[in-house]
């Protein structure tokens, strides 16, 4: 057999094909985001938006939609934001506490019943969270908790426990037992070692767990739609949905897209800053060699 020569043109063709594929993927990925940004900066009616999106006219760019969304909508953006922070913040705090305890117990103890417990939480986590609204709604209606802060914080907190607990456990598994043992030798009880050594070491994953526990309520519509009847308790997600519905009437995308951008911004910023942690944390269980 004759030795094969490296052929230049096939390598070139391969390289160009790769770039083409990636550019198409990038356009697909970016287009909706680009669409959101451009339309949020215009007040053009729906009918004329396409040409502007494909070739933005600088003279048509305006921040007036942002002005309307932030200052002249009812309920006000600030009130929606405040409610969202109350719900998401409480859920993240409670979820985080529970996740840290659960992760520690599952990772560093070998208590009798551990296997049963894991199967138990696995089974429970399989019940689709959206349909849990039905029993919650009926239970809380009897208790008079519908349209109250506490009535929605409770199901939100319950939602994140299993997933974040497993997330923290996986991370703690990667911390050698030695470290905790060194703390025991250094004069600490296991509880002290947990708070003074394990918790500081787990800060990255606890941050991720808190972020995810925050994100759930922040972007939840299904629960909030059912539980919150008075608009003074509405969250950002409800506000966005509401604007989207009424936009169809005004034939103008500007409001819903500028609302979407303002609402996404903190999430996107957090995500960009901690991208590596988030991807690393979430793929920890998925990537196997």
């Amino acid at each position, binding site marked *: 057999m004759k030795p094969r020569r490296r052929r230049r043109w096939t390598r070139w063709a391969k390289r160009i094909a*790769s*770039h083409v*594929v*990636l550019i198409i*993927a*990038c356009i697909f*990925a*970016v287009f*909706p985001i680009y*669409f*959101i940004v451009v339309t949020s900066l215009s007040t053009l009616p729906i009918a004329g*938006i*396409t040409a502007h999106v494909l070739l933005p006219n600088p003279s048509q760019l305006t921040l007036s939609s942002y002005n309307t969304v932030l200052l002249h909508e009812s309920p006000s953006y600030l009130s929606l934001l405040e409610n969202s922070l109350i719900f998401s913040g409480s859920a993240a705090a409670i979820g985080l506490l*529970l996740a840290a*305890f*659960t992760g520690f*117990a*599952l990772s*560093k*103890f*070998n*208590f*009798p019943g*551990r296997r049963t*417990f*894991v199967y*138990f939480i*696995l089974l*429970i986590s*399989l*019940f*689709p969270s*959206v*349909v*849990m*609204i*039905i*029993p919650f709604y009926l239970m809380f*209606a009897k208790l008079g908790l519908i349209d109250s802060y506490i009535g929605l914080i409770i199901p939100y907190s319950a939602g994140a*426990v*299993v997933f974040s607990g*497993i997330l923290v456990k996986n991370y703690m*598994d990667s911390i050698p037992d030695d470290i905790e043992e060194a703390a025991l030798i250094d004069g600490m009880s296991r509880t002290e070692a947990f708070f003074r050594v394990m918790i500081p070491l787990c800060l990255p994953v606890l941050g991720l767990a808190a972020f995810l526990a925050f*994100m759930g309520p922040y*972007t939840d519509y299904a629960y909030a*739609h*059912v539980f919150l009847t008075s608009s003074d308790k509405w969250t950002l997600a409800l506000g*966005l949905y509401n604007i*989207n519905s009424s936009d169809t009437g005004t034939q103008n995308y500007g409001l*819903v*897209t500028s609302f*979407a951008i303002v*609402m996404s911004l903190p*999430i996107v910023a957090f*995500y960009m800053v901690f991208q590596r942690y988030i*991807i690393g944390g979430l*793929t920890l269980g*998925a990537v*196997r*060699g």
Partner: protein
Amino acid sequence: MADLRDQTLGFRLRHEWPAYLYLLPTVAVLLVLNAYPIAYCIYISMTDFGTGGRGSLLSYHYIGITNYQFALTTGASTSLALVENSFLWAGGSVVLFLLIGLGLASVLNQPLRGRAIYRTVILLPWAFPAFITLLVWTNMWGYEYGIINSMLNLVGIPSVNWLLSTPTAAWSALFITNIWLSFPFYTVVFLATMQAIPKDLYEAASIDGAGTFSQFRRITLPYLAPTVIFVGLMGFLFTFNNFYPIYLITNGGPGISTQIFITESYNDAFGAHGATPLFSTAAMYSVLDFLIIVCLTLVVIWRTDLTRNWLK
């Protein structure tokens, strides 16, 4: 500590009991806020709550498995459609995720100029909360003014009524949107797995005379297989109950041609149009959904070592 695994029950109890203290709050939450509602939901599914016309928060009756009998006889066509749609939704999405994710990951795994930029851009959709972008996608699929139809018109293709005309059009819109939401994650996971393959394996293979294709088949694929299977199965379970894409984009339409268990259940209970809430029917569909998922999970546990990480 882990070394006590082989100890007897009494020994472990004596030395590991603090674990129960750490788990106490979680167990309380799980029992009160998960297990009890699930049990309650199962109970509701066996009542005439809402279906009898006299259902109120205070008055409904236990009627056994009547609702389930109804779902399997008179309502069989709806039930069957829900099963088909749920599996099509989850299965179709996952197949597309895997194909696109694997394809892009292997393209990105080459030494290309601008690789880091491509990777960052491809990850962008993932940074935005799905609920928010889904609302925008709904607008983009609009018949009259949606930008997708407008752009099709520009290249001479007539508008398609994506969400309301045919099941095919509605499913296409759903799948494309769902791909946009998920392909970044799959691409990154597969890319990370590919990059974890030791480079010297490829070097050894190329010295042994293996070509690009043969290297992919004999090295890349076997290495990827566990991840692909695991991620694919988890993706299936997740998509099966992924509520928002369908709820926001088609809401099950046209007719019930894209309705899945979870959207049907939500709409039965809290649907608009001022209809009577069909709590018992809604609960029944969610229980059916749960049963299917449990069965699928048992298969997953049996086929893979899903719980390995958890039980280690």
